[in-house]
């Protein structure tokens, strides 16, 4: 201990204190402050970059989710539209069919009615014709038959015969 105290040099202590103070001040000004500031700003920069990358990733994920939703919705919409269209088409075809059927039926009915009436009138006309014709023929035959007495008698005879047979 005595040697230690003997070795303790007050002058050296003072010199060391002075050098250390000056060194700390100089180093702070010219080295530590700029170095620590630069390190800090670099680390902040890295942290910011990492944060923004993370944000971008999240945003991207959100965007992708949105897109997927949109796609799904669009698909559902298309599906429903197609379905609607199909139904509409079927209905239209159905409607058209029934309408056509109805129209056809009426047309058929009209045609049949027309045919019937035409037939009737044709028949009536035919009947008239036939009656006239028969009268004409009968008139002609009678005239011919009655022009000769014998014949008239013969006729009366045949007719009487017929009447007898009846």
């Amino acid at each position: 201990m005595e040697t230690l105290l003997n070795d303790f040099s007050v002058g050296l202590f003072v010199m060391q204190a002075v050098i250390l103070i000056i060194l700390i001040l100089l180093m702070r000004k010219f080295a530590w402050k700029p170095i620590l500031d630069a390190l800090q700003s670099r680390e902040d920069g890295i942290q910011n970059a990492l944060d923004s990358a993370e944000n971008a990733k999240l945003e991207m994920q959100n965007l992708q989710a949105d897109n997927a939703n949109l796609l799904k919705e669009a698909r559902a919409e298309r599906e429903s539209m197609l379905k609607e269209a199909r139904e509409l088409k079927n209905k239209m075809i159905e409607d058209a069919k029934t309408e056509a059927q109805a129209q056809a039926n009426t047309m058929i009915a009209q045609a049949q009615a027309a045919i019937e009436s035409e037939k009737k009138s044709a028949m009536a006309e035919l009947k008239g014709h036939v009656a006239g014709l028969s009268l004409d023929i009968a008139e002609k035959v009678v005239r011919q038959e009655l022009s000769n007495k014998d014949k008239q008698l013969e006729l009366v005879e045949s007719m009487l015969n017929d009447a007898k047979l009846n």
Partner: protein
Amino acid sequence: MVSKKSINFIAILVLTLFSVSSYGNSDKQEPGNPVNTAQEIKEYIAHHLKDSHDFHLFTHNESGTHISFPLPVIVWTSNGLKTFMSSAFHHDDSGSVIVEKGDTRLVKLHSKIYELDAGATTVAFDEHHHPENAHKVLDFSITKSVFGMLLAGLLMLLGFSALARGYKKGHSVPKGIGRILEPLVIYVRDDIAKPNIGEKKYRKFMGFLLTVFFFIWILNLLGLTPIGFNVTGQIAVTACLAIFTAVIYLFSGSKDFWKHTLWMPGVPVVLRPILAVIELIGFVLIKPFSLLVRLFANMTAGHFVVMSLIALMITMKESFGVVGSTGMSLVLALFISVIEILVAFLQAFIFTMLSSLFIGMAVEEHDHH
């Protein structure tokens, strides 16, 4: 081939642990007589561990010339400030060379500068080899340690301001030396300061912590080079560092810290004054003392062991032969040197770590319970 000078240089570095026997007390080395006895080696180590006034590189034994460069001596004597170069002492460390500056007579004895009392012309020693008619002066010399500190400070300024300039130029990734320094700065910030002081308050103390960490580390590493600095093994230096830490944490103590130190809540009132005394002694004396002694003792011991192991080459020569002792010394010294590289970092780390721990204790704000 190893030149003769470097052999001498190695021999000069050589010192011992096993210095039990004494071969008389020769302070002055005779020319042609290398440092090779246990006693001389012991003295050499002791001399190395102390601060010195000139930058000694090696001694050429045959001619007895010292190769060193002088450093300025600045002393405050009873007659005011005196400055001269340390070469004025002619490498004398035994108080026999007297430097006269005006009315002041100065001698250097065991790396300390003494001023002779008025009228005295030579140093008289008592039986413990302490000078009787001389007293120590306030010594602000640029000693080897001060030179080392200036060198370390310069290295730090150059290296880290280069790193800082790199950032200013807009490179967010450092180039050159900055690539090594940046992770160290981040290490001190993230693994020493932040966990101990807290995310919110660490920034204010970074200047001190970073400076102290690199200052101690660089000086510890400089101490491992053959130039032979032993700055962090100077008790004045470690004391100064520890006192800085103490001043910082005592002056930045929060209200909570002082409340808990001086009037600890949650313990019986009778015990509170006793606790206050214990806590105060702990913070004011014991913690700084442990800091200063830990660093000082570790670095001194490291230097002592490395030098002693190198000295085995000479002290064990007779028992193991030249090859055996050299080999043993080489292997052991290499092994310890590798450990010392680790210790150099470890001590800087521990000092900074404990400093930030104490600062953290002082600035902590407790949740009110």
